[in-house]
């Protein structure tokens, strides 16, 4: 039987300053249900008046044991768990997972499937950045941003619904390709979006980028230096705003990113405003990739022909005994993967999303570890908020763009 314990300072003694022990500074809980914490995150703040002396993040409220659950499922079935990980980047998580499985079992992916993966992943990146833009506007009392951003995000979710039947938890990418080919309406839906979106980004920028109230809250707040960022393992736009030119799509191209012409926005200031600018520019760059990928999209199969890993199409099962056996084997037993370990990383909207996948020769993974970018990005928070006001903490927290499902797994 668990007993209710009184919270004592002893557990945090080594994390707060000595002044907290004498009662000179105040300890304050922000969260786990504060509206600007972007999820169930608790921040224990040590305050001197309104100035933050120390900040102790407390995570784990959304821990669901995804890694453990994936180890108990076959390679095909474990994929649905990755959707639930970072719920703003479901397609990107699927991509990281299927690429890891493909690398482990050495499976080919048709060119059309690669093109579709690029289009959808970049649309997902835009949707994720839109949620970030909307909510961080909301945190700084720019209410209308939220409404505009969600209007465009809705259009992207409609495209996802069109291709997969689901708005968020799509599981559309599968090892060896995608679930099925896109419907004919897909191209028009994406073209419509390409047509309106650049103008909409201009609109967002006209509302925020030079807004004096917005600049007051962002400029020079929460400076993150290059050295600290690297030491803490910070990746993604947060790292690029601190002057490090590191984007996995550019330096280690996967699924054919090398064919597309796009820039990686890098700024050196490292403050909240730089992180805002990097993400807004990324919206435009992602749009460029989507347009190029759609123009280049070839016709052809969308799933690998390797029947040992990819189930045969329905039409074949009725006429071929071998296909029936493959179908049966794949959905009851699954496919075996070698007794080896691989690490595969992709660029998620938040940074390096890595997957350590270790097989044991059987149809279930021995170990799945998800290296989630928000986890490391949040760890640096306690370093960059010191000396700022509580109100600035809200701006800083929203500028590093964390997703709690990504942290707690």
């Amino acid at each position, binding site marked *: *039987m*668990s007993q*209710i*314990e009184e919270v004592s300072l002893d*557990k945090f003694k*080594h*994390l707060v300053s000595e002044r907290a022990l004498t009662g000179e500074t105040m300890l304050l809980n922000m969260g786990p249900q504060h509206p600007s914490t972007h999820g169930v995150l608790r921040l224990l703040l040590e305050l001197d008046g309104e100035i933050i002396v120390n900040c102790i993040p407390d*995570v*784990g409220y959304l*821990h669901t*044991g995804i*890694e*453990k*659950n994936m180890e*108990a499922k076959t390679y095909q079935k474990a994929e649905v768990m990755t959707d639930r990980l970072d719920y703003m980047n479901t397609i990107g998580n699927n991509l990281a997972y299927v690429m890891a499985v493909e*690398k*482990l079992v*050495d499976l080919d992916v048709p060119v059309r499937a690669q093109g579709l993966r690029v289009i959808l992943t970049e649309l997902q990146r835009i949707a994720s950045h839109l949620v970030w833009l909307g909510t961080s506007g909301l945190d700084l009392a720019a209410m209308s941003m939220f409404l505009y951003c969600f209007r465009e995000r809705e259009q992207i979710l409609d495209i996802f619904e069109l291709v997969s039947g689901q708005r968020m938890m799509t599981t559309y990418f599968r090892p060896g390709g995608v679930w099925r080919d896109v419907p004919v309406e897909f191209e028009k839906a994406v073209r419509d979006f390409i047509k309106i979106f650049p103008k909409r980004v201009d609109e967002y920028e006209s509302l925020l980028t030079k807004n004096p109230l917005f600049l007051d809250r962002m400029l020079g707040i929460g400076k993150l230096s290059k050295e*600290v960022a*690297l*030491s*803490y*393992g910070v*990746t993604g736009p947060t790292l690029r705003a601190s002057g*490090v030119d*590191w984007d996995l799509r550019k*330096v*280690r191209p996967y699924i054919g990113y090398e064919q597309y012409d796009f820039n990686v926005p890098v700024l050196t200031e490292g403050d909240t405003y730089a992180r805002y600018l990097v993400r807004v520019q990324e919206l435009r760059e992602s749009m460029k990739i989507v347009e190029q990928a759609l123009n280049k999209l070839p016709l052809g199969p969308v799933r690998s022909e390797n029947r040992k890993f990819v189930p045969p199409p329905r039409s074949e099962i009725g006429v071929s005994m071998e296909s029936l056996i493959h179908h049966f084997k794949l959905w009851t037993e699954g496919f075996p993967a070698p007794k*080896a*370990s*691989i*690490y595969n*990383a992709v660029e998620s909207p938040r940074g*390096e999303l*890595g997957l*350590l996948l*270790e097989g044991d020769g059987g149809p279930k993974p*021995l*170990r799945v*570890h998800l*290296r989630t970018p928000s*986890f*490391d990005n949040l*760890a640096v928070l306690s370093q960059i908020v010191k000396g700022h006001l509580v109100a600035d903490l809200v701006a800083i927290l929203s500028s590093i763009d964390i997703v709690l499902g990504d942290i*707690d*797994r």
Partner: protein
Amino acid sequence: MDKKLEPIVKAIQDKFGAAYEEFRDEVHLFVNAEQIVDALTLLRDEQNFELLSALTAVDYYPQETPRFHVVYQLTSLAKNLSVQIRVPVNGSSPKVPTATRVYSAANWRERELLDMFGIEFDGHPDPRRILSPEDMEGHPLRKDFPLGYEEPQFTFNFDEIDLRKPYAKE
């Protein structure tokens, strides 16, 4: 293996006598627990591995010696290279020196390993659980930790099972 990685692997092998494994162009080096801090420092300072991309562990239960591998995935931004360092750890009271002084990112990652695998890190500045509640018993990602099933409650045995459930009672 990448040509640029060969001298780095050789340097580690010469200095620490590290065993070496390769799979699909990924390099794994095996280093003893006592040498891990030196190996990481060497890689960071002399070979530009600035980023500790991942720090995790793998449980090979029921094998006991070594039961765990602690995995350090390192990335070099300057050279665009990756290397994986593995530390084999035995099953009885697993202990590894902390890497927090080399990479600050190790702080939370090591807390996660303490929480999930029960691997202790010597000299860690803040050895608390990170994801699960403080009063939890056991280490969930160990292979001998059950996945967890709930007993189904029916009308006839509702109260009986309710008594055994581990949540707070009135």
